[in-house]
């Protein structure tokens, strides 16, 4: 490993703490499980159950440890570094594929204004992979409008590829191959990204100040959410996100993450180390690398470049999914990409931590399947357990009642719930004590929001478990989900939409309840927290897509809009008013479709 990438003492302690917490939690949980199972004899299914509990609890504890590591200390920005002159040549690259042209280019116009206000000289390049010819024509009209409004000739560029080989990673790679030599740094954005010019200025200065820094990642905050689901996600990313990300930053040290956008890269470093090959074999596990960003971060580290994430760099925004179905669809894409990482764990020359990240990326999705396997193993274990012997001795006068395992199972359940809740409650307490809660509507409102978010995620957890499990099984059975373009600004889902998308979940819920009630009725009560949300899946899917007032899930952006966000909205409104004839329709789904099947 390169010396400057070696973890420092703090990073080592953070990693040791997280590993210890995960192992201790996993050992405790599996011991409790084994103890509970041993009441009626310890069989093979009990061993499987204990093993599954070990892995799933370790995963939960690992997530909790991220928050615990990220909690200590105040969220303060690092030392301010001034941009050195002459400014390095920087390009702001926006790869797009079948996006809404008006909003995409209005965002670029807003970032451009902000960048100019911040005194940064940067070029812009829109890298279009759009396949739809009509949409591409509108992109070009929108770009012409941007050029005119921003007086951008000579510093704003647009190119559309003939094919979209390698998808987004290939799109960026093609730009670097043809034009990368012109730039020292590239800020990589998504079509829905917004960044303040001051943030970009700070990022360039940080890259200048540390010649070994290959990539600097910001923590994009979700903005613009309107639905119950979207606002809950926005609140979680804004309120819990910085603490989890600081934990991640402390644990990862100089071998940090890349999330594909809202980050700055050193072009030479990226070119030198991030040319992605196709994986041998066919999709879904072969072919183009889909979750390319994590691989690129690992490759930068392999070549000796530092990769860092800094959650204190504000002024970085993105949009999030507005309903369960678009979230599940995104998860399907990410699942396929992450499972490919299983093939890269033993890639030559990688830092040990990078390999561990690949293991985590795979575990993030496989763990749902393991939870489902645990439920099934529990049922089989109970059914196949030997009947209790009330008179084990032939001449016994009084019966011996078997010990119940309620105490162990209750302790196990409390422990698992604790791993999920304690980090969020500690973040809440920390925010109230530090005054950060004021931005989220004050102590009472933020406490209510945290509670509502916990309730919502609890209700949706069984649905997510099934969506993840289905995605993993689809990928493992060779079904390629591809990497379809993002569908943003999706509307409200009707109950009929919810029924269409959630009836298979109801089917599984009914089948599970019926099987348990028939084979092991004493387990039915334990299954209800999982089965009831499944039975209510269509209602949950439809209800959480409905608009929500700002009474709950308040975030600072509700009251104080970041300048670049305000500027974007003004520009988009102005363009909508004056641009109908040229570019109509501007909605991403002119057919009136509100969503695609999940």
């Amino acid at each position, binding site marked *: 490993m390169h010396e400057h990438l070696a973890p420092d003492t703090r990073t080592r302690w953070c990693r040791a703490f997280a590993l210890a917490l995960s192992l201790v939690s996993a050992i405790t949980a599996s011991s409790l499980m084994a103890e509970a199972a041993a009441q009626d004899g310890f069989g093979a299914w009990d061993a499987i159950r204990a093993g599954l509990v070990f892995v799933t609890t370790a995963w939960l504890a690992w997530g909790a440890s991220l928050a615990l590591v990220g909690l200590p200390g105040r969220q303060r920005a690092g030392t301010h570094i001034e941009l050195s002159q002459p400014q390095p040549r920087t*390009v702001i690259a926006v790869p797009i594929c079948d996006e809404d042209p008006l909003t995409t280019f209005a965002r670029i116009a807003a970032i451009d204004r902000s960048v100019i206000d911040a005194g940064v000289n940067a*070029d812009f*390049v829109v890298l279009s992979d759009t396949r739809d010819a009509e949409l591409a*024509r509108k992109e*070009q*009209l929108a*770009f*012409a409008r941007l*050029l005119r409004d921003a007086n951008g*000739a000579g510093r704003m*560029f*647009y*190119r*559309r590829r*003939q094919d979209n080989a390698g998808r987004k990673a290939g799109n960026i*790679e093609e*730009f*670097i*191959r*043809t*034009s*990368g*030599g*012109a*730039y020292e740094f590239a800020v990589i954005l998504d079509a829905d990204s917004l960044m303040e010019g001051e943030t970009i200025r700070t990022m360039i200065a940080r890259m200048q100040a540390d010649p070994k820094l290959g990539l600097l990642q910001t923590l994009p905050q979700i903005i613009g959410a309107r639905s119950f689901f979207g606002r809950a996600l926005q609140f979680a990313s804004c309120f819990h996100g910085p603490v989890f990300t600081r934990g991640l930053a402390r644990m990862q040290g100089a071998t940090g993450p890349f999330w594909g956008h809202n980050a700055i890269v050193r*072009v*030479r470093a990226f*070119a*030198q*180390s*991030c*040319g*992605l*090959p196709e*994986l*041998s074999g066919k999709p879904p596990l072969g072919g183009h*690398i889909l979750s390319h960003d994590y*691989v690129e971060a690992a*490759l930068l580290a392999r070549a000796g470049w530092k990769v860092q994430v800094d959650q204190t760099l504000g002024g970085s925004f993105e949009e999030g999914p507005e309903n369960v179905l678009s979230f599940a669809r995104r998860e399907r894409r990410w699942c396929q990409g992450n499972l490919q990482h299983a*093939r*890269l764990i*033993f*890639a*030559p020359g990688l830092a040990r931590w990078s390999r561990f990240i690949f293991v985590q990326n795979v575990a993030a999705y496989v763990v749902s399947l393991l939870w489902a396997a645990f439920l099934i193993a529990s049922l089989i274990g109970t059914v196949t357990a030997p009947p209790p012997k009330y008179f084990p001795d032939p001449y016994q006068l009084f019966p011996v009642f078997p010990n119940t395992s309620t105490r162990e199972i209750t302790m196990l359940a409390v422990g698992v719930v604790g791993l999920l809740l304690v980090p969020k409650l500690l973040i809440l307490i920390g925010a109230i004590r530090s005054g950060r809660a004021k931005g989220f509507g004050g102590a009472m409102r933020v406490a209510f929001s945290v509670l509502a978010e916990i309730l919502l995620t609890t209700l949706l957890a069984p649905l997510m478990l099934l969506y993840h499990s289905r995605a993993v099984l689809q990928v493992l059975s060779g079904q390629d989900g591809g990497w379809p373009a993002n569908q943003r600004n999706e509307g409200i889902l009707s109950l009929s939409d919810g029924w269409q998308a959630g009836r298979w979940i109801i089917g599984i819920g009914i089948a599970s309840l019926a099987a348990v009630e028939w084979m092991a009725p004493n387990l039915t009560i334990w299954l209800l927290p999982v089965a009831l949300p499944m039975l209510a899946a269509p209602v949950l899917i439809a209800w959480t897509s409905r608009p929500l007032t700002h009474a709950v899930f308040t975030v600072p952006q509700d009251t104080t809009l970041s300048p670049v966000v305000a500027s974007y909205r003004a520009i988009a409104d102005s363009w909508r008013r004056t641009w109908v*004839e*040229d570019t109509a329709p501007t909605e991403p789904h002119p057919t009136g479709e509100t969503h695609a099947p999940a």
Partner: protein
Amino acid sequence: MDQRVSLNKTTPAHPQEPVVVVETQNWTPPAAPLAMPKQVLEPQTHRPALTDVARMLFLRRKT
């Protein structure tokens, strides 16, 4: 690819308006090629190397 985009390719909404032609030739980013070598990610099979070693041993024994 013809990169000229004209609004007149479709039926104009307002025929009396002047033709809007968008020249896209100057939109392409500056040409400044940079090498981006493909990285090796999948573990290389050790079979050829092992075969070499085996052959060497075999030949050595033979001689």
